[in-house]
C-alpha cells in the first residue's frame, strides 16, 4: 500500500515525506512560538521559517531557543550547529515555563499509536499481539498537555490509528466532550492535526477526529480501511496540497541526501 502511493507520488515529483513535511510546515503561522521535535518536524519548522513564517521561533526542550534556522541539518536538537549563534541556550525549565504559561502556539509530536480522540501512546505498544516497551514520553506529554495546538505525525495503519490507546502517554481529547477541562488541562489547548502517510485528520469541537484531507493518489476507502475505528469524513474533504516549488527547494537544500525525506 505504502509502496504504491510512494511510486505514485514520485511520478508527481516529490516523496511522501516531503508531502508530510510541507503539510506540517503549514501548521505553523508567522510569528508563532513552536516546540520543535526532531526528524520531520525539524525540517517542517525550517521550511516554514524559510517560506511563509519567517518570524516563527523554535523552542527545544534541552533549553535552546532559535529565532534563526540552524546553519546545518540536525540529527538531534543538541547538535553543535543548533547551539552556535542560538538566540538563547538556557535550561529545560526556561522553555517548559514558556510552555506552561500558554505562550507556545504549536508543538510537534510523533507517536506509535493515536486514537479517535487524539490521545497518544509512546510507552507500551502492541506488535504482533505482544506488548512492546517503547521509549516513553520525553517531552511529549508536557507538550500535549500545555501547547495551544499539537500536531502529530505518524504512519497510517490500523494498529497505529486505533479506537482507544491502551496507555495515554500524551493526552488528546480523552474520551471527547469536555474531557480536557474536567482533567484540569488548560482551555484552548489540545491536538489540532494528525498528519499521516495517507491524509490529514482534524478534530471537531466534541474532540473526535475526522478526515480533513487525503494525500494525492489515496482514496477515502483506503484511509477508512486502514483506520481502527469508523472515521468520520469531512463534508468539505480536499486533497492535501502538494509541496510547492519553493518548499521543495528549501527541503532539498537542507537535506540534499534525502536523509529525512526518503
Amino acid at each position, binding site marked *: 500500500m505504502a509502496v504504491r502511493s510512494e511510486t505514485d507520488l514520485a511520478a508527481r515529483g516529490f516523496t511522501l515525506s516531503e508531502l508530510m513535511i510541507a503539510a506540517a510546515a503549514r501548521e505553523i503561522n508567522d510569528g508563532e512560538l513552536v516546540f520543535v521535535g526532531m526528524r520531520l518536524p525539524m525540517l517542517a519548522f525550517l521550511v516554514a521559517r524559510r517560506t511563509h513564517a519567517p518570524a516563527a521561533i523554535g523552542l527545544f526542550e534541552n533549553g535552546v531557543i532559535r529565532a534563526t534556522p540552524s546553519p546545518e541539518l540536525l540529527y538531534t536538537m543538541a547538535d553543535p550547529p543548533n547551539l552556535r549563534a542560538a538566540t538563547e*541556550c538556557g535550561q529545560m525549565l526556561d522553555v517548559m515555563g514558556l510552555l506552561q504559561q500558554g505562550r507556545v502556539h504549536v508543538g510537534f509530536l510523533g507517536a506509535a499509536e493515536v486514537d479517535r480522540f487524539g490521545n497518544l501512546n509512546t510507552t507500551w505498544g502492541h506488535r504482533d499481539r505482544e506488548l512492546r516497551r517503547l521509549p516513553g514520553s520525553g517531552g511529549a506529554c508536557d507538550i500535549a498537555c500545555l501547547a495551544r495546538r499539537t500536531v502529530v505525525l505518524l504512519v497510517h495503519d490500523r494498529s497505529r490509528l486505533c479506537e482507544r490507546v491502551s496507555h495515554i502517554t500524551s493526552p488528546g481529547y480523552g474520551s471527547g466532550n469536555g474531557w480536557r477541562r474536567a482533567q484540569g488541562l488548560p482551555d484552548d489547548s489540545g491536538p489540532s492535526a494528525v498528519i499521516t502517510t495517507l491524509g490529514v485528520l482534524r478534530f471537531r469541537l466534541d474532540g473526535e477526529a475526522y478526515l480533513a484531507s487525503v494525500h494525492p493518489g489515496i482514496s477515502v476507502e483506503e484511509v477508512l480501511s486502514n483506520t481502527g475505528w469508523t472515521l468520520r469524513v469531512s463534508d468539505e474533504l480536499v486533497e492535501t496540497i502538494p509541496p510547492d516549488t519553493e518548499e521543495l527547494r528549501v527541503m532539498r537544500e537542507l537535506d540534499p541526501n534525502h536523509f529525512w525525506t526518503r
Partner: protein
Amino acid sequence: MKLTTMREAIERHVPSGSMVLLGAQLEPMIPFSAGHEIIRQGRRDLTLVGPISDILFDQMIGAGCVARVMAAWVGNVSAGVGYCFRRAAEQSIPRRIEVVDYSNFTLALALHSAAMGAPFMPTYATLGSDLLKKNGNLREFPSPVNEERLVAVRALRPDVAIVHVQRADSEGNAHLWGSLGVAVDGARAARKVIVVAEEIVEPAVIASDPNRTLIPGFLVAAVIHEPWGAHPSPVQGYYGRDHAFFAEYHEETRTLEGFERWLTRWVVRPQSRHEYMSQLGEARAEKLGVKEHAFAAPADFGY
C-alpha cells in the same frame, strides 16, 4: 584534593544501590566514560535518573547494573529503540527493572524541587495522562489558591550527579555551556556531584567568568580530567556527535549476544578512556573535532 581518576571516583562515590543522575544536559555531554567505569566495577541495583541519557542508560541496563530507571525517555535518539531497555522491561533480561515514567518537564521539576529544598513543585503537566496514574511521585491535588487541579511533583534527590562539563578547576568550580537541560538543578539536587571535565584550567580562568560557573566547587566531591569522556555524544567547542556510532550500536545490539560482544569491545576490554579512544582511532576522532572555532566575546567584569 578533589582531582582524581575515574576509577577512584566511581569506587569511592558510586556504591551499588546508589541513585545516580546521568545525562543532565539531554543529548550532549552525556558522561559515557563514567557509565562505562560503573559497568567495569560491577555496580548493581542502581537507580538511574535522567531525562533521556540516550544509549548510556541502555548500556548500563544491558550490563545488569540497574534495578530502577526514573526517566522521561529511554532508547537511542538516532534510532528510537534501545534493545537492552526493551529486553529488560519486556523479558527481565538480564534482570527485572522497575521503570518509573516521567515526562521531561516533571523530571526537571522533581530535581528543581530538591534543588529548592521544597517537598514538591506544582504543575499542570501530566494531568489526564497515564503517567500521572502510574508514577507514585506525581500526585494530583486541589490548588490551595484557586479552583484548579494540579500535579505535585515530589522532590527527587539523587545520591550522586555525574555531570560532564567543558572545563573546571581542580576544586570542581565548573564552566559549562550550550544545552543545559537539567544540569544546574541536578547538581544542586544531588547529595554529591562528580564533575568530568574536558579540560582542567587554573582557578583564575573559571573566576574570570562567574556567570558561566554553573556548578560551584563546594558542591563537588570529585573532579576528573577526561578528554573525550562524553563520546559519542557531543561537547560544544570540543567535538561533534558521532552519529554513526549510535547507528552502529543500534545494529550491533539487536541480539543479547550482539550486545555482549559490543560491551566487551567498547567497555570491558578498554580499561580507560585513553584505551577506548585508541580503539576509536585518531582518524575518526579528528573527523569529529571542531572545524571552525566560534569564541564568545569576552564579558567585562571590570570596575
